[in-house]
């Protein structure tokens, strides 16, 4: 059986990749995928803990996270498309109208 610590390490690594991707990538779609990676890192650790603790709550939480992530993706892409229609770029550096 795979020990719990391996899952937790996996989730920590995936979460870190997500954070680094969010902070360093310059393409909004990749930035968005990085956020999804972070959410799924939380899912991995919740499921692993849930199995290890023999408690169902963690898995219930995962269902909520997956559902909310879907809604979030829909809204995020809708905002992105609304933006793209007025200002055709998806480079983070070029979105700089508001500053100060």
């Amino acid at each position, binding site marked *: 059986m795979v020990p719990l610590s391996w899952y937790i390490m996996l989730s920590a690594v995936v979460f870190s990749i997500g954070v680094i991707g969010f902070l360093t990538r310059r393409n909004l779609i990749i930035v968005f995928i990085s956020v999804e990676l972070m959410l799924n*890192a939380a899912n991995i650790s919740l499921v692993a803990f849930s199995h290890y603790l023999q408690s169902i709550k963690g898995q219930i939480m995962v269902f909520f996270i997956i559902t909310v992530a879907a809604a979030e993706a829909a809204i995020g892409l809708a905002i992105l498309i609304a933006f793209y229609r007025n200002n055709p770029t998806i480079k983070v550096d070029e979105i700089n109208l*508001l500053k100060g």
Partner: protein
Amino acid sequence: MELNKLDLFSIRLIAPEIILISIALILILLDLVIKRKETIAFVGVLGTLTAAYVNYKLCAMGWTGSTLLGMFAFDGYANFFKLIFYINIILTIFISLRYMVLEEASFGEYYSLILFATSGMMFMASAVDLIVLYVGLELMALSTYILVGITRRQVRSNEAALKYFFLGAFSSAFLLYGISLTYGLTGTTNLKEIASALQNLNLLENPILFLGMILVIAAFGFKIALVPFHMWAPDAYEGAPTSITSFMSIGPKAAAFAALGRVLFDAFGPMHVQWSSILIPLSVITMAAGNIIAIAQTNIKRMLAYSSIAHAGYALLGIIAGTHGGLSSMMNYMAIYAFMNIGAFAVVIMLRSKGFRGEELTDYEGLAKSHPAASALMLIFMFSLTGIPPTAGFIAKFYIFMEAINAGYTPLVIIAVIFSAISAFFYLRVVMYMYMKEPKAHVTLSTSPAIFLTIAVTAAVTLILGLFPSLLVELAKMSIAGF
């Protein structure tokens, strides 16, 4: 599972939320058949008043307790915040009516999204379980992202929504990872059970739990706009339609404060030393950055965004104090801040007219000559935001500083008072522009009975609470009694 234990009768405790969500759904349907947006707004206000009335009745009958398998608490603490949310919806709808027509974004969904966002906030204020807390937070956040970008033909609004969305999603991922670590170590998501697990499993010194707590605090820091998690706030506040700027400078902030207070007091209560050592530096840099950067702003919405960041820093003192008195002074602060901030934004909205944005500070030059009444009211709100007696802003700051001193954080309060003095510079600059400069251009005010009512109510409350503070202070103390 314990599904059979779900007492159907206890569902009555979420009746206000159910009413609000039903009204929000009805508004979407009404939008298909009714062309007049004022009617939809009116139904929205009526629904909010119904929810508030039901909530009041439930309180008056003395029903407190929890429902949804102990995940949702109906107590004075939550109800006090819900009062702020109801006021926030109604006043926001009032200031939106004329303004959204001017922005050519008068959609029916606008009103329904405000109700959805608020029901999310209400769930956050009542959540005693991290699952409900997360779902409430996302309901609030997702609705607010759309509201920020609702004027979708304006690039500014699109960009504001984009920035708010990405940083908001980033912060909720932090919240989730923090929740997962906390759940893994304590084996539960219920706040009270987390507190007892901390003691029983001897986790108080556990570094992983500490990390989980930091992640949760960081996520709420994003919503409250604490420095260094504030980057989205000025952009989102400036780009959003002004009515929504006003809405989101109060609702999401108060909801995040409510949830943060409950999580830190209920779940991480035994770790007060650890979390106050994180919050103290956050509060100091928030007050410093908020007040100092605000001085450099030329756009009034952006200036009020930094002011709202600074106010979050002051309100945080109430949580840092770690006492019930501190928490009640924080609640007091959020309620007073709601009135004075909506009032200030209502004046900003009045300056917007066809072909004129009225968002630059220079647009206020000589306003007192052409519009003495509007200037006098703006003066009251600016005095109140600075914290000058006899306005309510002074009372809010006075009580929060007093509670922080009682809890032994005198150096922190001295810093807060210094920054509060600095803030007078940029608030009173608006007043100086209005009264001491010559008018540059002719400004026409877009008045309507609804805006007039909003400004009258907020100005009256700002003055009345400044003169008779015990009205609100006692209510906050009473609300916190059963916490």
